[in-house]
Each structure stands twice: as C-alpha cells, then as structure tokens.
C-alpha cells in the first residue's frame, strides 16, 4: 500500500506523526493570527519594498544622474546594459528606481510614523482629558482635516526648496504635519468611548497618574486602530511625496519615484507616438504596488478588528460542501435538510409529541 503523498511511511510499531492538517490550525488559533490571504500578500509585498529601500542604492548598477552617452537623444527601451531602459539623456532607469525607492519609502514611512505619534498624542489626550484641551485639539485637528493638504504643501515646499537642500527627514516631517489629523480624530473617538468604562474610572479613583492610565490601560486597546492609522498615513505619504516630486516642487535632482515621473512627463514620454512605457510604468507601478500592499494589510486588520466584516466561514467552499447556498442572505435562514418528502402536512397530527 503506497503512502499518500506527504506522509512519512512508517514501519510497524512506529507511532504515526500527527496529521499535518491539524497542527498548524491549532497553532494559528492559539496565536489568533488571521490567515486571510489579503494579509499575507500585503505583508509579503510590503516587506519586499522595505528590503528594496534598504539595499536599493547599494545594488544599483549606475549612478542615476550619470548619462551613459551624450550622443543619443531619445530614451532607449530595456536592453542588456540597461534592464529598465534609459531616459532621454541616457540615464539608467533601473538605478533611478533603486535609488529613488529608498527616498520614497523612507519619506513615506517616516511621515507615517511621525504623524501617528502626533495623532496618538493629540487624539488620546483630547479624548481623555476632555474640556478645553479637547476643544482646542479638536479644533486644531478639524482645521487641518478640512484644509486641502497638497496646495498647502506646495506653498511650503515652494519656498522651502529654494533655501534648503532636500532632506528626507525634513520632507517626511513636513508631510506628517498635514497627515496626523485623521488618525487623531479616530483615536479621540475611541478614547472617549473607553474613558467611561469602569476599569478606567477605578484607575483614576485609585489615583493612578493620567499618563500612566493613557499608556498602560487605554493605549494597548487601541493598537489595531493605531496600526491601521499608521498604514493609512504611509499611503497618504507615498502619494503626497510622489505628487510633490512630480510637480517639481521638491528639487528634481533628489531622486524618488515621483521625480522619475516628473522627467518622464516633462519629456513627454507618454505622449510620444510610441509611448516610452519603460520610463513611466516602473515608477507608477511601484508606487501603486507599495500602496496596494499597505492597503491590503489595512483591509486585513479591518476585518480582524470588526468580526462582522468576516464571513464566519459560511461562504465559499465550506458552505457548498455543507449543501448551503453560497451566500448568506438576510431574512432567509438556510435550511440544511428541507422537510422530509411525504410528510403528512394536513393530517391530524397531535401537537407536542
């Protein structure tokens, strides 16, 4: 008898190893990690990009500014020498992508981190302390929320770029200043609802200091929301930084994916009769994939926080195997085994058996 694929053939007397199906499932349930494919794909992609940010400039084959030739005047498609082709002035696009990747990812993550710290600080304080602190911080957050960010940033960077050289940390900081308000509002709402819970009240009555309560009682419960707010802000940071570079408001000699698109647009790469897709597709796709990875992660965390968004295992394959209709329908509870045929419906059956 041949052993089914995947099992270890055992001799007589040896104990059969536990079925491989059971183990990971039990473990997963213990750690409580959702095995949703969304999270796995998102996580994988995100890690890939972080790796790219770290090693990118180190593995770039050329200097992104260097022109490999001064005689050719048109961008060249991908070739052996230039894996992603060249720009109009014969710069290697792959190198630009690898170098620019670090700046893009670093700025966006930094912006996300700083904004999230601000959001936690302002949001939790506003929710916890209430009163005039709440009024003031809420007003501040609302103002920043309503004011359109990109035009404001254009004004700031328009002046800033003239006097200071581009610095990833500075850029991240400024972008963060416009991106904290949304997270702060969400965290404030959550803190408000938690504040009236009994265990918080009792901590205050005991005399525990405010900052300790906020740090150790409230914050641990807010972790999923902080995580999703962080990811949201990083996405915002990516898009905003790319937009600012694309506009040329941030110095165009400072490489980022948006900058590549600036040059592609100014040299009309997409408007050519034969569009130079190798120039504008890589940066755009990279931006999109990075953002999508974070959005997928967010999606997954959302489902984790709000169990109603999950489908409780009653759809898809499991449902079909059980003989149920594949979609749960409100107001139409599924019946697994319909009434047995041949039942006497209008007979004289007594009531309770």
């Amino acid at each position: 008898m041949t052993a089914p694929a995947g099992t270890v053939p055992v001799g007589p007397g040896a104990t059969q190893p536990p079925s491989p199906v059971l183990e990971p499932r039990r473990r997963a349930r213990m750690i409580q990690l959702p095995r949703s494919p969304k999270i796995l794909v998102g996580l994988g992609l995100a890690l890939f990009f972080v790796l790219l940010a770290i090693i990118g400039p180190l593995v770039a084959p050329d200097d992104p500014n260097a022109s490999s030739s001064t005689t050719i005047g048109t961008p060249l498609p991908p070739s052996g020498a230039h894996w992603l082709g060249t720009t109009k002035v014969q710069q290697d696009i792959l190198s630009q992508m690898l170098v620019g990747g670090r700046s893009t990812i670093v700025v966006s993550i930094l912006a996300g981190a700083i904004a999230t710290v601000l959001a936690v600080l302002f949001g939790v304080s506003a929710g916890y302390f209430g009163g005039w602190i709440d009024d003031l911080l809420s007003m501040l957050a609302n103002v920043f929320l309503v004011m359109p960010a990109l035009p404001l940033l254009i004004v700031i960077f328009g002046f800033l770029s003239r006097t200071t050289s581009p610095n990833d940390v500075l850029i991240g900081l400024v972008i963060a200043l416009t991106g904290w308000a949304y997270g702060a509002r969400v965290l404030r709402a959550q803190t408000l609802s938690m504040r009236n819970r009994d265990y918080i009240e009792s901590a205050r009555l005991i005399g525990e200091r405010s900052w300790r309560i906020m740090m150790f009682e409230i914050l641990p419960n807010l972790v999923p929301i902080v995580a999703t707010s962080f990811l949201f802000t990083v996405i915002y940071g990516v898009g905003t930084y790319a937009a600012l570079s694309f506009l040329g408001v941030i110095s165009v000699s400072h490489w980022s994916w948006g900058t590549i698109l600036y040059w592609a647009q100014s040299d009309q790469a997409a408007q050519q009769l034969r569009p130079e897709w190798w120039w504008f597709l890589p940066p755009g796709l990279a931006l999109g994939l990075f953002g999508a990875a974070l959005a997928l992660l967010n999606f997954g965390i959302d489902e984790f926080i709000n169990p109603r968004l999950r489908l409780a295992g009653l759809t898809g394959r499991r449902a079909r195997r059980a003989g149920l209709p594949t979609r749960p329908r409100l107001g139409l509870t599924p019946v697994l085994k319909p009434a047995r045929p041949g039942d006497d419906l209008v007979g004289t059956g007594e009531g309770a058996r």
Partner: protein
Amino acid sequence: MSDSLIEVTGLCVDYGTGDTAVHAVIDADLTLRRGEVLGLAGESGSGKSTLAYAITRLLRSPGVITGGQVILRRDAEPAVPLLAAGERELRGLRWNHIAVVLQSAMNALNPVMMIGTQLTDVLTAHRPEMSRADRRSRAAELLDMVGITADRLRSYPHELSGGMRQRVMIAMALALDPRVVIMDEPTTALDVVTQREILEELSRLRDRLGFAVLFITHDLSLLVEIADRIAVMYAGRLSEQAGARELFRSPRHPYSHGLLNSFPSLHGPRRAMEGIPGSPPDLREPPAGCPFHPRCGYAMDVCRTDMPPRFTLNGGGRSAACWLQDGTHEVPAELGSVGSGGDDPPVPPRSFAGETAPAATAAPVAEAGGQA
C-alpha cells in the same frame, strides 16, 4: 387540528457548520394555538430567541436550520411548511400571519424615517389595493389603538419616549391583523411601571383582536401571570411544557422547580432563598447525558449518561424531559404530586449536595406591616 396555528416538530438549529457548529436548538417540539399566549422561558443562551427566529427564517448568519418542520396553519388556506417555503411565499406570509416585536424599540425603528412611513410600508407591500389616504387613516387608527395621538405620524423615533416607542412597535406589528405575534423580551428594557402599562395594553389588544402570542423572556414570574402555557428551555432543549398555572403549582422538571423558587413571593411566610447552583453549560461542549445533571440535586446515574426523552404527562397536556418522569422511578413529592393548590408553602428543591434545604416553617412570621 384547526386549533393550532404553528406546529414545530423536531426543530434543530446550529450556528456555523461542520465540526465547529454549535447546536443552539435541539429537537424542539412546540405548538402555538389560536389566541393563546405561549411563554418561552429560559436563561440567556438557552436557545429561546434562536428558536423563535428560526420559525420565521429570520435567524441571522451564521444560523442554520439543520432539521425539523415548521407548519403554519391558516383559515381557509392550505397549511404552509415554512422551512421549505420559497422566498416569495415567505415574504407574502410575513407580517400578514406572523409579526415580530423586538426588545429594543430604539433599535427596531429606522432612525431616519418617520413613524408614519414605518407603519404604512407594510400596507404598501401587502395591501396594494389601499389608497394613500386609506393607509394614512389606518396608520392613525393603529396609533390610536395603542394610545398615541395621530400627530405623531410625522415624528421620528428619537423624538419619542421609550414607552411610546415600544407601543409604536406593537402597533406596527398589528398593522395587518396577524394571527401570531412573536415578542422577544418586549418589556425587559423598560422600567417596571412602563412594563405594567405595556402588558395591560397588550392584554386589551388581545381581547379586542384575538391574536396568539409567543412571548419570549427570561422572567418566569412574568409568564406565570400572563401566559396560558409555558415552555421552558435549557441548553437548547425544551425541558418542560405545561399550562402556566400547572407549572407554577407543580413543576415536574428540577430546572423549572429551581427557577420557580428563585424569586421571592410577596405573600406567604419568609423562607430561605436558593438559586440554582452552577451556570448554564457551554453549548460548544455540552455535558454528556442530560444537560442539566451537573446542577441537578436529583441527578441519577442514568442522567449522567443518557439524554432523557420528553415524557408526556397528564394525558398529553404537558411534558417534561427528565428521567424521574419515565414511570419507573419514584418521583419526589415536590416534583410529582397532582398539585396541591396554591396556598401551601412551596417545597424548596433539593440542593446540589443532596440535602434538602431547611423546610419553611408553617407558622407565618410576624412582620411589621405583615403580609397575608
């Protein structure tokens, strides 16, 4: 029998499917008769709401009905097997024959729509021949029936008080003159005074319109007052069914006995209170045998291993799922006597340790402003 309205046979309801399914209702048999009030009592998690919603296929996901039959009988029309009915048929039957009143009226009324609209939408759906003016006057009539003025037709739910909202819900339920009204803890969220008002209102309406009520609640004392018959659920099974008065005087199942002795009586001598020790079982891992046996003072060996079937007692009028009632065991006096009338002090149930609680003294205790 043309007397019955809803016949439930062997109903089984699960949450989820496969290995992780939780059996919320197991093999339930129930009959609701014309014009009667059937009380469905039990602790949280006993399956009473699940049962009621499953009857009308309103149970939310992940609820699944895994077996049994529910038959709706109507005058001059063929009986309908509800579990096999198609969507269109169900929609036509709903509210016409069976209406639902929920616990929290604030949540059951659509917050962005006027009360009037919520009263007339069923008329629009089920009585297309009515004109707008007819619908409006019917809505006003319904409000009047529950003691609310017609100008409230244009109000929104948040503009009404809690008691008014509950009355609107009842009026809404009666819009199509249904034969059955299922009420899920309709008074639990209200203060006692409003509770009483609502119950009296209900009683008046029943006198006038003659509908049957499936009244779900955890408050057995309430049912003893308003119900004609009571069905007690425990861990997803119907442990006992009997007429209300019969149940009150002589419960047959130890659980019912325990419940009835869990609330103090305003009359009679003072006695020591005893609840039921322990807590209801986790439905994901129910105990073997009778689900009540870990908390039962009368548990026998057979109770720990075999599930007791429902034994019919008193010639078919009542039933109890307890091994003590199988005819071969000697039934303790408090669980088996014919029912000695209401004035004797009720015998307290045997405690878990097997000892009988100290019997109440027969002599009334003199109290300041003593009670009869």
